[in-house]
């Protein structure tokens, strides 16, 4: 069942076109990753979904209701975490959490306190004294302590340390288990990869790919650096191996996911001294996207 639908949404700021014809939808119980580089239009899309910005054309609906016209009705069932939580310097974190939870609707006070502990937040401090990460925690606690059905998270982990990022990922996983839906935006591919069922990739205001990660496998190549006892001349002729280069004592190349197994066998038969792999970055993915586009056109 589709609970969120964005159809042909265009947004102009004066002459500048921030979004042009954005389309995607999220099904119930799904974690949807919304990825794109800075300035791609993620926050603009999310603000349209929240009824803070009015789309120039196209429609955005949540729970079947229009995001602009019925925003109050919709917001009773959603929780939002902005990328940069702006809080009132004179209120404490605890007060802001209570306020946010109350303004949305019902919440679980026990869960609130548990989450404060898990995120290691001191709720008695005034917001003015909080670091960016701590402000982010306030927003996260008030989102996850709510009984919302849809979580809209706009680069929610900026400023969190790795330990807290883990807590955040657990929270998303728990929400998913409870059958809730999540829209998670990020500019880091590996972050959404772990959590998301499906992703949409946005660039310069246009969605360029949507699908499950397995569907997008054709776009993800892993970067490998291998140093082996024996040289591996076979590598050069293997399909699915790209950009082969020799670096100090070894080779560096990219592998299509489908070819990974064969490549690993070849490397291990050559006797591994050193093997490094880095996940594909968003830039790799874009490059690959335009390569495929190019070959399709031919």
């Amino acid at each position, binding site marked *: 069942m589709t609970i969120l639908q964005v159809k042909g949404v265009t947004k102009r700021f004066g002459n500048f076109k921030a979004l042009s014809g954005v389309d995607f939808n999220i099904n119930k119980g799904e974690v949807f990753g919304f990825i794109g580089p800075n300035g791609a239009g993620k926050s603009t899309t999310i603000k349209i979904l929240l009824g803070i910005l*009015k789309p120039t054309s196209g429609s955005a609906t949540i729970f079947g209701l229009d995001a602009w016209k019925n925003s109050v009705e919709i917001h009773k069932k959603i929780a939002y975490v902005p990328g940069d939580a702006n809080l009132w310097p004179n209120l404490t974190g605890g007060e802001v959490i209570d306020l946010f939870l109350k303004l949305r609707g019902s919440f679980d006070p026990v869960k609130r306190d548990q989450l404060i502990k898990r995120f290691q937040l001191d709720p008695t401090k005034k917001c003015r004294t909080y670091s960016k990460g701590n402000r982010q925690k306030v927003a996260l606690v008030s989102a996850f302590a709510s009984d919302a059905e849809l979580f809209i998270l706009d680069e929610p982990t900026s400023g969190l340390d790795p330990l807290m990022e883990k807590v955040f990922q657990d929270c998303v996983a728990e929400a998913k288990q409870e059958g809730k839906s999540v829209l998670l935006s990020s500019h880091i591919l590996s972050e959404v990869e772990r959590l998301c069922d499906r992703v949409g990739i946005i660039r310069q205001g246009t969605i360029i790919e949507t699908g499950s990660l397995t569907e997008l496998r054709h776009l993800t190549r892993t970067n490998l650096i291998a140093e082996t006892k024996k040289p591996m001349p076979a590598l050069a002729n293997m399909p699915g191996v790209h950009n082969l280069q020799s670096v100090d004592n070894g080779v560096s190349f990219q592998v299509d996911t489908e070819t990974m197994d064969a490549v690993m066998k070849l490397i291990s038969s050559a006797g591994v001294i050193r093997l490094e792999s880095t996940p594909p970055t968003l830039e790799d993915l874009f490059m690959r996207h335009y390569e495929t586009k190019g070959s399709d056109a031919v």
Partner: protein
Amino acid sequence: MNKQSFSGTGQLIRFYLKADRIRITAWILSLMALTSVTAWSLDGLYSSDAERQAMATTMENPAMTAMVGPAYGIENYHTGAMTAHQMLLFTAILVAVMAILHVSRHTRGDEEDGKMEMLGALPVGRLASLTASMSVMVMSQVILALGIAVSLAVLSIPSLPVSSSILYGAALGATGIFFGTLTAVFAQLADSARGTTGLSFLVLGAAYMIRAAGDVNNDTLSWFSPLGWPLKTQVFVDDKWMPLIPLLAGAVVLTLVAFSVMASRDIGTGLIPSRPGRNHARKSLLSPFGLTMHLQKTSIITWGVALLAIGLSYGSVIGDLETFFSSSELLSGAVDQSSGFSLTEQFISMLMSIMSMIAAVPALLFLFKLKGEEKKGRTETVYARAVSRYTLFGSYFLVALIFGTVMMLLAIFGLWSAAAATMEDPISFGSLAKAGLVYVPAIWVMIGFGALLYGFKPGLTGLAWVYLGYAFFAVYLGGLLQFPEWVNRLSPFGFIPEVPMEEINVLTLVLLVLTAGLLAALGFTTYRNRDLAG
């Protein structure tokens, strides 16, 4: 404080000058125009000695002394004496406001926006931005002083000689520099731009009050007010430069204080440390209206005290006024006996109109607080919950309506209590309240206009201040310069009946309230239908 702390100052000065060139130029040119036009019109309006002496007699009373400062050179009330008497104090206040806003924006304001953090990461010293903003402030005040001097000297009116015109300009510039440096100190103590501006305005208001009390009683108290000093120059009559020394010496001391605090504190903090607060919010906070009230309560209380004080100080003058009128044969003759209203009563309506315009200031500030919230990206987080645009905007609008009215009531109450204490035959609270509360619909029209401007586009809210300023000058200068009636009728305050001299016209008041409602309704609709900045 080593030399490194100041590196990059030159670059920043150029940056600030560039960013503020229009703002500074606009301020200076308007103040020059105001000064020049007023002096020129006074010279034209009161052209014979007899007319000027008659004017001197009406000006020489405690109410005027409290409002504009002591009259001097009364024996020969020439255009110079008249200009200084009517305009110096008010222009000095405007200059102080200009300096306060400037320094607050470039110290605490930048720090709040996080600009300072970015500057701090660049190769600029930690004192560079304070040095730069102070330098720009002093530069603009010096230019202002020269500009004002020129704007008077070019009129070549015999009683406005060049040397005195320079002193007139210098008195204004020195006042501006004093309040600019004062703001720099408050920028170190407070931890927000609002707090900085608020504290500075509070001291400005207190300085005005202390001076008023001192001038009326003709004692040394005025020497304790920085606004008393420029008046002590007796410019155009005695031309004393000495009183500017305490202003500039004070500015030097304040500058040193600001720098030593700035050198030792952390960026982003104030001197006042924060204590641990509550884990859970009180129930009263947990609604849009509750939040609005919570965010504004300090400012509501501060303004309430200020309006009460203004009422009290005007009220104490009324008592003096009565004694003065009874002792002055000329003036008791001037009272229109047939109307049956005393001059005191006639003064009351004018005081009420001025107090209502002062009350409109906090009313608009309470409404425009929402603009600050939007700019800081805090309305977005509220609207992401189940809160409608009407509810939040309505909360701010309601706070403005209610507390705008309360401010007026407090001023009336202050006026009444002081008057009752000093008058032999006190005016009843009822009749004072009637004379004052008729102005409430005009305050509401200002709020409605503010709501329309902000609802339509946050960048337009400045127009509300321009309009209020216009209304003020239409009343203040209108009587003096004998403007035609329609000038006053362009502001809502011009429609208010002067109770008790005039009958209360219910229809006019109802129409004003309806206008306020209509403007607000338009504001609400446009606000509902526009994009929010954050």
